[in-house]
């Protein structure tokens, strides 16, 4: 669809839902200027975002972008070097007793005790979790056709991933974090894994955050997106609104400063005669010289991930972006 002079309704301008005062508890996960360094290298830096409760969110970024660091900070496995992280309003590494029971975590490559039988793993879950739902765990194992007597090490990769997921689900967590859960799975196992996950998410209304280096896997199941690249948050927000706010502008070769003064240019390319921009719109587009096209989520993600090779630009925090929006509204 290509239309010139397309104006966006005002309600669509706010890509980010900033944490509102008095509603902090409605965020399952909140970070403020969160950073983690190893020596001089920052694995994650200046990360400010809020994940509203009840969302199924994708944490997308290339390998080494800091996704695992982010998730480990959220679980309390790591302590931040800078800034803060809060899960349901609590700092995970300071209050593990309160946070851990509400948190489910499936680590990368879904590690299990390979020598333990599935039944033993379920007993481990039962003994270590006050909110453990044994009936749910057993029912899921039966549904998945995973024999309880089998040792974890003898299960297929897909089954191991499923067992790790069921262990996390039977904790009855309010927030479930999954680190690259699909990376080592074949397409069929991926589908079954996501089915188990989404069934549970719909059933319980828990908040889910999955990391992946590939948005394609997650687009169907997620409604919230966080793009992490080069240790920085590039974008965070509701997927529908992200898709609505991003446009591709195609026009004759021209100066883009007019567009840049109002909108955020995410990606630009120029040929001898033509300029193509991918912009995050911050208001209506009035300039008739641009043809406006819709962009797919995958293209948006790729555009943001491509930014990391540019000189690192300062990434505005949600609070700052909110400020931008207010200014915009003031101008109008």
């Amino acid at each position: 669809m290509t239309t010139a002079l397309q104006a966006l309704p005002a309600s669509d301008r706010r890509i980010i839902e900033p944490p509102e005062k008095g509603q902090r508890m409605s965020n399952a996960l909140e970070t403020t200027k969160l950073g983690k360094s190893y020596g001089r290298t920052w694995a994650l830096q200046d990360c400010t975002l809020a994940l509203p409760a009840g969302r199924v969110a994708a944490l997308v970024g290339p390998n080494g972008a800091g996704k695992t660091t982010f998730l480990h900070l959220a679980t309390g496995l790591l302590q931040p070097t800078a800034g803060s992280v809060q899960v349901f309003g609590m700092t995970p590494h300071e209050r593990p007793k309160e946070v851990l029971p509400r948190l489910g975590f499936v680590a990368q490559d879904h590690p299990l005790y390979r020598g333990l039988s599935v039944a033993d793993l379920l007993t481990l879950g039962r003994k270590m979790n006050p909110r453990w739902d044994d009936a749910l765990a057993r029912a899921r194992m039966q549904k998945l056709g995973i024999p309880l007597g089998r040792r974890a090490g003898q299960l297929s990769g897909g089954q191991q991933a499923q067992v790790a997921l069921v262990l996390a689900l039977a904790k009855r967590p309010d927030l479930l974090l999954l680190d690259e859960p699909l990376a080592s799975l074949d397409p069929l196992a991926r589908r079954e894994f996501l089915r188990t996950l989404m069934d549970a998410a719909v059933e319980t209304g828990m908040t889910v955050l999955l990391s992946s280096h590939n948005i394609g896997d997650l687009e169907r199941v997620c409604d919230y997106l966080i793009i992490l690249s080069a240790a920085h948050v590039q974008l965070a927000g509701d997927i529908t609104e992200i898709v609505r706010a991003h446009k591709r502008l195609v026009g004759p070769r021209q100066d883009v400063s007019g567009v840049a003064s109002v909108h955020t240019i995410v990606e630009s390319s120029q040929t001898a005669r033509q300029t193509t921009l991918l912009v995050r719109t911050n208001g209506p587009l009035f300039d008739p010289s641009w043809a406006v096209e819709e962009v797919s989520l995958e293209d948006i993600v790729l555009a943001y991930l491509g930014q990391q090779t540019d000189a690192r630009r300062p990434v505005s925090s949600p609070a700052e972006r909110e400020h931008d929006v207010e200014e915009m509204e003031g101008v109008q």
Partner: protein
Amino acid sequence: MTWVAWRLHRAEGAVVLAVLAVLGAFLLLSGLPMAHSYQQSGLAACLAHATDSTVRGTCGQVGGAFQNQFGYLLPYAAFALLALPVLLGALVGAPLVARELEQRTHLLVWMQSVTRVRWLSVTVGLVLGGGLLAGGVALALMRWWYSPFAQLLGTFRPPAYDFSGPVLPASAVLALALGIAAGALTRRTVLAIFLTLLLVLAIRMPVELFLRPNFAPPVAVTWPIARGDNPPVTVSTHVWEVDSGWIDGQGHQTHGFRCSSPSQTSLQCMQADGYRSYYFTYQPADRFWTFQWTESGIYLGLSALAVGLAFWLVRRRVT
């Protein structure tokens, strides 16, 4: 949580039990004939009635025969009892944290509703308790097995000292604690095993060689060289002879002298060189338990430090 710790370490428990069973079988098979001979040969009766001064004289023949028959077993038992705590530390202690990190199962077990401090407390408690128990069983076995020798040779001298009192279970706890700390520090099982061996040696050797003889100042006896080299006191087999030698003209203790003229007797020679007296230092037998508990206290104190380090690492640093 206790069930979890037990389930994850029961294989190691079974191995330790098997090792104790093998040791027990060895001690039983060799110890029964030994105990029989000890009674039959009259050595037991002799030693029971012997006073300190007559030990060497009266029971010498029988005692010598007994030692000739069974003495060869001592080095084996001594080696096994020195090696067991070290093996426990290297093979059970070192992997305790390191293997979790290596196999990344800490990401599973630390993400349950139990904090990792509690996880470590229960696991370490179980393993150290097991080590203490295993050390206690080994100690009981050894005290029974060694009892004939204990009358004959005493228990204060190495190597008997190491398996005749609380030092044995304490050294098992020490090796385990060092292993656990090494594992948390290196995060690599193999590296942790080597570090454990190194640490155990680095602690136990100086304690045995330098600290233990000086837990209390040794009792010193000196006498003129003219009286000959036999001490003027009766020396029980139960004391620990720490040192002996000559005191030279300057009053220094020495362990040897040169005889400048071959025509002289050694006494004339010593006198000519200005040597004045013999000396002999020892730890009296009644200090045995004080020494055992002192050394055990040192080992347990160091164990507490090592376990504290492991907790700090697991809480703060390890991930």
